[in-house]
């Protein structure tokens, strides 16, 4: 055996790509988990088709998973891969354009047969025509090597053995980046606890892939990516949807109100339903409704009954919930509505990310029906946003809308865990029980919240509904002045939530040339871009909105301190419309709707242009 070289790298982006049935999501997320355990900072980006199994070997069937892992602090899954692992010709075709010259390309040659080449639209094999010469190509018969490594494993068909090619490939990448195998072995052992022959097969294939590189002449260099310095504490890797579910549960425990979660399955929001269904021992009731209208109305019914009603969907389902959200505004009950956004309009591109539902969140109801809006900025931030949404809903007795997106929902990053129960804010709850002088719409002087009364409270029998109501008694009222008053007070109540919205902190110079303003899931890309520009000597600063209604109190004043305001959004310009209308600022948009997150360089080059 030759001695191999070991090189140290600061940061690496690796992408696994293959057919939907090739298990790319599994190996990608396992690679990410191991990077987390090793102590790298990381961000992941799964990118998969909406079809569960599009025809095998075709371009639409290609599924990918990108992991950015680093010895430094990072904020995005990376613009482009340094290493690309492809399991078939279609995956090569779809992804090769992203791999820079000299990038590492690992290819399963077994999949490059005539049929697969044809399905991917290759006239001749790119492995043989020299068209991959600019890459560091490792052409390896992954499938047959995986099969061979499992020769002695009993109880598996040849087909099942060959399926372990993805784990074999994972083993190879573990060798390449000097990763330990034990974490993944532990995971595989748990995952297949009931099928010992699969435990044996997967762990053997993993080790075989590792050993293959170790022995192969072709692999002369391996790399290490040292741990990233991070603040002391406990961490785990978390996806946005998981974090959101945990945030809701945490708020439920803190408030003492059990969750009622009404939802109808939809990509990419369903995992929140599935996660919460695991937490019944927290008193959570999950209700898989017949449609999104039933999902939201059942949640309103639950809030009326004194639970915390929560509902989630994606754009099409939120459209269906519109009328009921108006009802919640009118009857003023706590409620949390979550929109895990995806590319629209209509069914759009279900598995692709976008931020194009902000204006729907702001205005997507009949009548003047203001709703507070929060937006998470990273996968782990979904925890805090979920928690905060419940807190505000209860404190102000009001429906609250949360915006996440497919990128946050499925992406993962290290999350610094709250240490103690006391680290989480308290959520005081007050149910009104005193019949003396009770009026259903008499408000708290400060928050303008109306009393929250549970049915079953003696002496407080009263009626609420979607018809306009008298400002105190809540009885139906068609009085013109009363309608004006109630419309104003519903708006004022939302505006007063600003007392619970922290002031924005500017990253970079407090005033200067270019201010980049973002919201939601673009935080990481914008932050990386602004840092890069600043290190190049450009006066660029960043603010990022997690509160979109009401805006933080100091937003207008900050906007006024910069010569240029750039607003990158994954839509055709929605926040910018709100900023222009509200602050009369001549902001400049950077807009993209390709179903993909921003690349850092796209934002960098726009900042460079503006500061030139």
């Amino acid at each position, binding site marked *: 055996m030759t001695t191999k070289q070991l090189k140290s790298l600061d940061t690496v982006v690796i992408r696994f790509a293959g057919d939907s049935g090739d298990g790319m999501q599994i190996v990608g997320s396992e690679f990410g988990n191991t990077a987390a355990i090793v102590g790298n900072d990381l961000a992941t980006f799964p990118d998969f088709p909406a079809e569960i199994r599009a025809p095998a070997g075709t371009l639409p069937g290609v599924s990918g998973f990108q992991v950015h892992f680093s010895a430094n602090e990072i904020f995005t899954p990376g613009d482009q891969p340094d290493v690309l692992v492809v399991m078939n010709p279609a995956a090569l075709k779809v992804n090769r354009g992203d791999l820079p010259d000299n990038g590492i390309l690992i290819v399963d040659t077994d999949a490059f047969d005539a049929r697969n080449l044809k399905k991917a639209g290759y006239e001749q094999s790119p492995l043989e025509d020299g068209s991959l010469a600019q890459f560091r190509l490792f052409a390896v018969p992954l499938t047959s090597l995986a099969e061979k490594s499992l020769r002695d494993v009993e109880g598996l068909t040849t087909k099942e053995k060959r399926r372990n090619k993805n784990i074999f490939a994972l083993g190879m990448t573990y060798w390449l980046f000097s990763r330990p195998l034990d974490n993944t072995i532990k995971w595989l052992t748990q995952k297949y606890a009931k099928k010992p022959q699969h435990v044996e097969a997967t762990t053997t294939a993993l080790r075989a892939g590792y050993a293959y590189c170790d022995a192969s002449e072709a692999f002369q260099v391996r790399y290490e990516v040292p741990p990233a310095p991070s603040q002391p504490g*406990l961490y*785990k890797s978390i996806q946005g949807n998981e974090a959101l579910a945990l945030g809701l549960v945490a708020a439920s425990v803190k408030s003492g109100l059990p969750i009622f979660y009404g939802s109808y399955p939809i990509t990419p929001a369903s995992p929140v339903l599935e996660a919460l269904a695991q937490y019944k021992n927290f008193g959570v009731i999950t*209700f898989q409704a017949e449609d999104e209208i039933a999902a939201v*109305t059942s949640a309103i019914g639950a809030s009326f009954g004194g639970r915390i009603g929560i509902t989630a969907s994606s754009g099409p389902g939120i459209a269906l919930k519109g009328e009921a959200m108006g009802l919640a505004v009118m009857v003023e009950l706590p409620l949390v509505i979550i929109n895990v956004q995806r590319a629209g309009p209509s069914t759009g591109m279900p598995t692709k990310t976008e931020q194009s539902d902000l204006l729907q969140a702001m205005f997507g109801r009949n009548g003047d029906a203001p709703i507070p809006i929060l937006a998470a900025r990273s996968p782990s931030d979904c925890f805090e946003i979920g928690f905060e949404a419940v807190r505000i809903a209860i404190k102000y007795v009001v429906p609250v809308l949360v915006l996440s997106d497919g990128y946050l929902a499925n992406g993962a990053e290290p999350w610094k865990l*709250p240490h103690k*129960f006391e680290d989480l804010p308290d959520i005081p709850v007050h149910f009104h029980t005193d019949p003396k002088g009770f009026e259903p719409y008499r408000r708290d002087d400060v928050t303008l919240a109306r009393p929250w009364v549970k*049915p079953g409270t003696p002496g407080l029998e009263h*009626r609420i509904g979607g*018809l306009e109501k008298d400002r105190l008694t809540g009885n139906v009222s068609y009085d013109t002045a009363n309608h004006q008053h109630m419309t104003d007070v519903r708006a004022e109540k939302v505006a007063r939530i600003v007392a619970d919205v922290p002031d924005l902190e500017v990253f970079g110079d407090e005033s200067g040339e270019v201010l980049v303003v973002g919201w939601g899931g673009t935080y990481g890309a914008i932050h990386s871009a602004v840092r890069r520009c600043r290190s190049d000597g450009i006066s660029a600063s960043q603010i990022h909105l997690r509160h979109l209604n009401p805006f933080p109190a100091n937003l207008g004043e900050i906007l006024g301190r910069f010569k240029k305001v750039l607003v990158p959004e994954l839509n055709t310009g929605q926040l910018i419309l709100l900023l222009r209308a509200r602050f009369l600022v001549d902001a400049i948009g950077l807009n993209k709707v390709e179903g993909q997150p921003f690349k850092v360089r796209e934002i960098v080059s726009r900042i460079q242009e503006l500061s030139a």
Partner: protein
Amino acid sequence: MTTAMDGPKLTKKDFVSDQQVRWCPGCGDYAILSSVQHAFAKLGIPRHKIVIISGIGCAARFPYYVDCFGFHTIHGRAPALATGLKVSRPDLSVWVVGGDGDMLSIGGNHLLHALRRNVGIKILCINNRIYGLTKGQYSPTSPVGTVKKSTPMGSIDRPVNPISLALAAEAGFVARTVDVFGPHLQETLLRAAAHEGSVFVEVLQNCLIFNDATFSNVTDRASREDNVLYLEHQKPLLFGAGGDKGIRLNGLKPEVVRVGEGGVPESELLVHDEKDESLAYLLSRMEGDGFPTPIGTFRTQEHVSYEAAAAQQVRTAREQKGEGDLMKLIHSGDVWTVP
């Protein structure tokens, strides 16, 4: 389960709210309201434990007029909202009131699913075969050929039969009653209240403004006896003046026969059985063609209610995993420490 009342005995008056009733004078809803208030007084449930949820329509104004908790929601969605409430608060007696349009048109989907899930809510579908509140368009229960403002040449779609639909939707308790049959209506409500799972009661109602006399065959005193078949558990299906007519099975088809002298003996008649699925459906299809309109309970079936099953899962989860421990949950999984 609803708790028995400790306080003083309630009367109808206790359930009259301070809101002025705004239905048209002579509307069948008045009689229904009065029967509901009477029946509620007899339930033995304190006012604060009763909730009425409604959608939109004339009938759906109901909650405003009954002095208990009430929620006038949005068109068609009352069964869904009530589901969330009942699952969250099984201790409450939850009633849903709405019209034929509200429940069978825009809300048809929610009705179907609330019934099949066996949520313990009592649904009163007030059927006047018309959209009252929007001023008289035909509804999903209007007969073919209904001429109204939106159907000047007559409606062309076949109506839905609410009872057949409720039976097919697996409702636990399915009954029909009539706005002006006060005692029958009250008795039906009391039985409905005592039922554990989902309840569907169709109340035939007269909208005298837009669809007057649509059920006159049932309500006219002169013809009532010949046109109404009172369903009673374990009793033969007799109707007509002095019970001179009955329903007999001919093969799989029901037929009207004369009973007694010159007719068939009572022993040949069908006997009502509330547990019999097929019989319930057969009875629900009897309409016109010389058949009487069946009134009463078509079917009852006992299954565990949705809210009880949901609560049981929470208990089971707690037994298996222990009461949820937040910090343990947050700190579970692949956690690492940065010193």
